[in-house]
């Protein structure tokens, strides 16, 4: 298999910062267009929707790091924290837009929405679950929590499922776009169930059947 050329080590740090910068471009450009009256139609809804979609995209990208390593042998784990945090910030911006621009900080109505409308309840649950992950995304927490960190961060599977479900339940008709996101999240979660068997079989095949390799 032709492998993707590895990025020289000295650029690793810079490439992560480039990802953060690129990652915020959709939000910043849409905010500028919306604030200056250049988003067509229902500007607030367009912006809210864009932030939600990008949150889901970054969540999915976060979940892609492992299968990319398993299947293509490319290790992009250095980008995973940035992708996860981008997802977190997009969810925060999505919720802030809903609260401030859409609902005018009408807290009674916001609480009613969260309590009574299942798709909003599920979305809110996703945001709440993202908070501990964002708070423990630093190196200190990883060291401090050890194996518990890995267990805690498996919450991202639930969060991604909540995100895809929230999107599908928010629309009048579940169409191809929502189905694609549901299918992607489902495939990425199913991969977690299969990968240990897949990796083991590949290791066995790579090794000669008899005689210890190394």
């Amino acid at each position, binding site marked *: 298999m032709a492998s993707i050329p590895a990025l020289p080590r000295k650029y690793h740090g810079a490439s992560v910062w480039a990802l953060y910068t690129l990652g915020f471009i959709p939000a910043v450009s849409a905010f500028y267009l919306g*604030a200056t009256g250049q*988003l067509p139609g229902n500007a607030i809804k367009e912006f809210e929707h864009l932030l939600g979609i990008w949150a889901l995209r970054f969540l999915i990208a976060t979940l892609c790091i492992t299968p990319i390593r398993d299947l293509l042998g490319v290790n992009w784990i250095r980008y995973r924290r940035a992708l996860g945090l981008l997802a977190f910030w997009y969810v925060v911006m999505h919720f802030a837009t809903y609260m401030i621009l859409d609902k005018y900080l009408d807290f009674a109505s916001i609480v009613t929405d969260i309590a009574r409308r299942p798709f909003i309840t599920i979305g809110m649950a996703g945001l709440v679950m993202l908070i501990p992950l964002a708070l423990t995304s630093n190196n200190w927490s990883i060291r401090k929590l050890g194996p518990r960190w890995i267990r805690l961060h498996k919450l991202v599977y639930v969060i991604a499922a909540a995100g895809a479900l929230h999107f599908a339940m928010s629309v009048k008709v579940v169409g191809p776009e929502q189905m694609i996101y549901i299918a992607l999240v489902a495939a990425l979660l199913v991969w977690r169930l299969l990968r240990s068997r897949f990796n083991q079989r590949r290791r066995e095949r790579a090794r000669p059947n008899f005689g210890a390799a190394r």
Partner: protein
Amino acid sequence: AADLTASPSSFRVDEPLTPEKDVTNYNNFYEFGMGKGDPAANSGDFKPSPWTIKVDGMVAKPKEFGLDELMAMPLEERTYRMRCVEAWSMVVPWIGFPLASLIDKVEPLGSAKYVAFETVVRPEQMPGQSGYFQPLPWPYVEGLRLDEARHPLTILSVGLYGKTLPNQNGAPVRLVVPWKYGFKGIKSIVKITLTDKQPPTTWNLSAPNEYGFYANVNPAVDHPRWSQATENRIGEGGFFGGSRRNTLPFNGYAEEVASLYAGMDLAANF
């Protein structure tokens, strides 16, 4: 869209018009796709002429009306609020004529209680009606009670902003019922049937708990997934235009139409 002249009418809302580019580029017309911009982008191949509307059912004189006959009706310009069930709204200068004047021509029988409407099915011209995924069963169908259909506010529209209807707005002829949610305003109508039974309606069939037969604009009855208390006026520029406003009972037409529903539980008959 060709220029169209119409006499002014007293039916006009005293609110700024929604810009024409928003009225013609922000549409729900799933026959052309589910995105708000899809109808404008995908309706170029649609042929709104020649056209006929068949009016039949419980009438003494069933008849097919050609487009020329419809355009020869006494056309008025009426500025109505348009409130979508998705909690956004517009103010649109429609051109059209009262539905009642068309119904009168076919002489409804005393047994007729409802009016059923049907949209054209043309998968070759309407991309949303073909392919693996179709969001709704076709044809799109809608209905009104006969008294609602004959109400002076109810019009068949053949134009807006001084021109014939653009394809994305339901060319060549569509229903406009300003006190009801926009989905009642069935587009590109080919058939109108008078009947004694409440006719099925597309969105009600699709999600009966979300979209009722009546679909009267009502700030007190929420959609299960969102509040209907307020609405976002389209085209009022940007995030900070203060464009969220309170939704009015019957979309502001309560004085004219509330009596049609006297004694009815509007939360049950939503």
